[in-house]
């Protein structure tokens, strides 16, 4: 390679190259996925049978909390930023990100934030009693205020927020300023569009999260009473502020996933994406609605009935643009000439199972019944269908789709398909029964349960262990692909469209030094 850059550890520490930084993000996300996943294994092992067999209740709470935080902030979000780094410049014909030094910084904050988040687990006292955060990933006050190492958590969240905001500014600046001549906004690949909208969501809500944790900080250490009723504060205010961040946050995790799937399905159907413009408008509509529905997470908190009605109506409205997206993907497949390579399998799996999560989302949005579903395993099943078989499936699909371009090697197709089928069968055995125990009356976030919930929990745990083990296969496939394998062509996929397929495989260290001409 003729490109001049430092080698060894310095290459990665000082890199301002979007491809290197994308790789760093993706590996970081994968490590966090395995860490958060191992915590999920502890959870499913304890829930395998009724009775307490393995861990203390507080340790269990710490596992559910850290699992959620690590998966949301450590795995899904950084993986999506990794894709943005690799793909956005290549898809719009830019030589790199607009702000390369800041790009380096936004990544390198992350390992420190993660360390700060995880460290309290190993500090002071008996490890098995759970010394880390154990108040749920939603860290509701006043419960979180009882935790005596809260400052670690708060500063970790601040660092994660800095990283996300800088990453978002970079993506927006890149998309607005660095497009190749002729690449108008409405010609951009849908993945670029979804990330543009996601970046605006991040800039809007991450400061709100920072505000929430700062108020927690001053309540805990400086005698304020924002959330303390005894001092004239309001614990429900915390939930409003948190979910004003938290609801757009779920779309931050899923919109780029929509983008990835919208690249993959047309490629393997050999047919342009159906309703490109309506996909863009639907994404923008979902992003807008995501700001005005937050209190549907709080129907039982004691809002006035007018408020409950408003949030119910606004919430179920999200079903409309989401349905439009699913219909468009279906119409893209219709009368196509489809082949089912591994990325396509994961993308179709995404459409099916994300839709199931969408249906349960509609059910949860209907307020009177939400009073029964709220805080049960039905909710756990719902958000794992949208986040695991939704966001994570899209991430895995994206890795299989673009890894030939990244490494220059094809992955092993047989193993990729095996990975898909093992994962898809086990993930449904894992999460589908959770609908049933939830409807039967099992609350979420409990370490032990009445034996009437035992059979479905045992089945769910077995599915969980199988799903966890299947991801080891993913790691093996990725390492095999990096090390070797069949050489990928420049276009990689038959008739694949888009600028990234016009450059050599593997993508050279610097691409589009002179901008391409887009017709």
């Amino acid at each position, binding site marked *: 390679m003729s490109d001049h850059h430092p080698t060894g550890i310095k290459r990665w520490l000082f890199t301002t190259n979007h491809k290197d930084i994308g790789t760093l993000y993706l590996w970081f996300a994968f490590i966090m996925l395995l860490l958060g996943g191992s915590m999920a294994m502890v959870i499913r092992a304890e829930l395998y049978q*009724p*009775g*307490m067999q393995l861990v203390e*209740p*507080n340790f269990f*709470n710490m596992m559910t909390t850290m699992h959620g935080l690590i998966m949301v902030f450590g795995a899904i979000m950084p993986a999506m930023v990794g894709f943005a780094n690799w793909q956005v410049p290549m898809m719009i014909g830019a030589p790199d990100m607009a702000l390369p030094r800041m790009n380096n910084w936004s990544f390198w904050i992350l390992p420190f934030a993660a360390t700060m988040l995880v460290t309290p687990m190993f500090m*002071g*006292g*008996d490890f098995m*009693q759970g010394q880390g955060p*154990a108040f749920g990933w939603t860290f*509701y006050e006043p*419960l979180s205020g*009882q935790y005596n190492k809260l400052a670690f958590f708060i500063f970790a969240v601040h660092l994660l927020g800095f990283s996300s905001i800088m990453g978002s500014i970079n993506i927006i600046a890149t998309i607005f300023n660095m497009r190749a001549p002729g690449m108008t906004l409405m010609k951009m690949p849908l993945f670029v569009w979804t990330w543009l909208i996601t970046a605006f969501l991040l800039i809007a809500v991450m400061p709100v999260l920072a505000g929430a944790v700062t108020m927690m900080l001053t309540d805990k250490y400086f005698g304020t009473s924002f959330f303390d*009723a*005894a001092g004239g504060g*309001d*614990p*429900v205010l915390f939930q409003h502020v948190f979910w004003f961040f938290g609801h757009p946050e779920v779309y931050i995790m899923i919109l780029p996933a929509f983008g990835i799937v919208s690249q993959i399905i047309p490629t393997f*159907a050999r047919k342009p994406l*159906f*309703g*490109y413009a309506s996909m863009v408008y639907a994404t923008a509509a979902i992003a807008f609605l995501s700001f005005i529905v937050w209190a549907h997470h709080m129907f*039982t*908190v*004691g809002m006035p*009935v007018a408020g*409950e*009605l408003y949030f*119910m109506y606004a919430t179920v409205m999200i*079903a409309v643009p989401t*349905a*439009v997206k699913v219909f468009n993907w279906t119409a893209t*497949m219709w*009368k*196509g*000439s*489809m*082949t*089912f390579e591994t990325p396509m399998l994961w993308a179709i799996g995404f*459409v099916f199972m994300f*839709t199931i999560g969408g*249906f*349960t989302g509609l*059910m949860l949005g*209907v307020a*009177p*019944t939400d009073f*029964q579903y*709220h*805080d*049960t395993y039905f909710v756990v099943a719902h958000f794992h269908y949208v986040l695991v078989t939704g966001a994570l499936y899209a991430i895995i699909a994206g890795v299989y789709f673009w890894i030939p371009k990244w490494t220059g090697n094809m992955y092993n197709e047989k193993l990729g398909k095996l990975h898909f089928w093992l994962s898809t069968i086990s993930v449904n055995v894992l999460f589908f029964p959770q609908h*049933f125990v939830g*409807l039967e*009356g099992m*609350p979420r976030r*409990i370490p032990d349960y009445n*034996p*009437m919930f035992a059979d479905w929990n*045992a089945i769910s745990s077995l599915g969980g262990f199988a799903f966890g083990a299947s991801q080891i296969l993913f790691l093996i496939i990725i390492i095999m692909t990096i090390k070797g394998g069949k050489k990928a062509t420049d276009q990689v996929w038959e008739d694949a469209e888009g600028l990234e397929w016009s450059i050599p495989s593997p993508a050279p260290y610097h691409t589009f030094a002179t901008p391409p001409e887009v017709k």
Partner: protein
Amino acid sequence: MSASKTIKMLSRLLCAALLLSPGFAFADYELNLIRGVTEVSHMQYNLHMLVLWICTVAGIGVFGVMIYSIIAHRKSKGAKAAQFHESTLVEVIWTVIPFAILVAIAVPATSGLLLLESTDKADVNIKVTGIQWKWEYNYIDEDGVKFISQLDKASDDARKLKSGVDVTTIENYLLNVDNPIVVPVKKRVRLLITSKDVIHAWWVPNLGVKRDAVPGYINESWFYAEEPGVHRGQCAELCGKDHGFMPIVVKVVSQADYDTWIAGQKGAASASAAEDTKVFSMDELMARGEAVYTKSCAACHQANGEGITGAFPAIKGGKIATGDKAGHIDIVVNGKPGTAMAAYGSQLSKAELAAVITFERNAFGNKKGDMVQPSDIK
């Protein structure tokens, strides 16, 4: 796992598979939402079924088209890709149809929500207070009827890590309490729900009631039970270490049985008040103190008094238990804001407070030798 249990599990998996196919009756209660015993819970169930069926039909439609396409429009079958990629008419149609369906759902959902929230008028008013990790019930129309309800002893012993107890042998494991709440049948019961520490949620699925208990707020909810019966539920909002272990039991009884129960509660309350002026011996205080400690303190400070490092301080050799008496009484009676240490002044009687403080000062090798009498508690 025994063979019969395996068969049972397989048959349920089969049921689950059937559930996914059209025409299945959704009859098995172990798969579906609890129907419950009140007007509200029936409304919730019916609305649940309506939306579930709409989703099922929509799912069959969308998945059907996708599956057909996946089978028919594949390259290996020689399918040639069409190039259509836009149709404003189609986009409008599939925007309008979901919207119309949502309006159809919103109508019964609105009336259901108004029913659920109609908390005016009540025959019985009960103030429900969530406390880490138990419930306090205060019958505000009945002077002095107030008690704490927490996980029953059999479940509490069995749920300890590696207790060695087969929990399937425990009746209503984790869903049983020492003092259930008792209400009369065919009466509107209003619940005024609040919390002393963190947020809890009072949930009894059969009654269709789930409402957060928030410190500083009093939330209202209600139910009307048509038949006598026993209904069980749990705290539904994560509230710390023992969130999974604060169940709720509601006994619906006839008016006559309810009146008898109320009279009994009032008698117990006056007997407890009489004790507050008594002077106890050291042995009496220690024996009673141990019982109170086990029930109210051991969850955090542990049965051996050693606490949990980093979370709950030790009583054994602890600064407060071996410090001066007034400070010890103060922290037990008034609690420590911002921590899990509750104010026990309102949860325990003066005699119980005196006993447990005496116990803490003279057990676990703490040999203060002093006694606290009910008259010392202000």
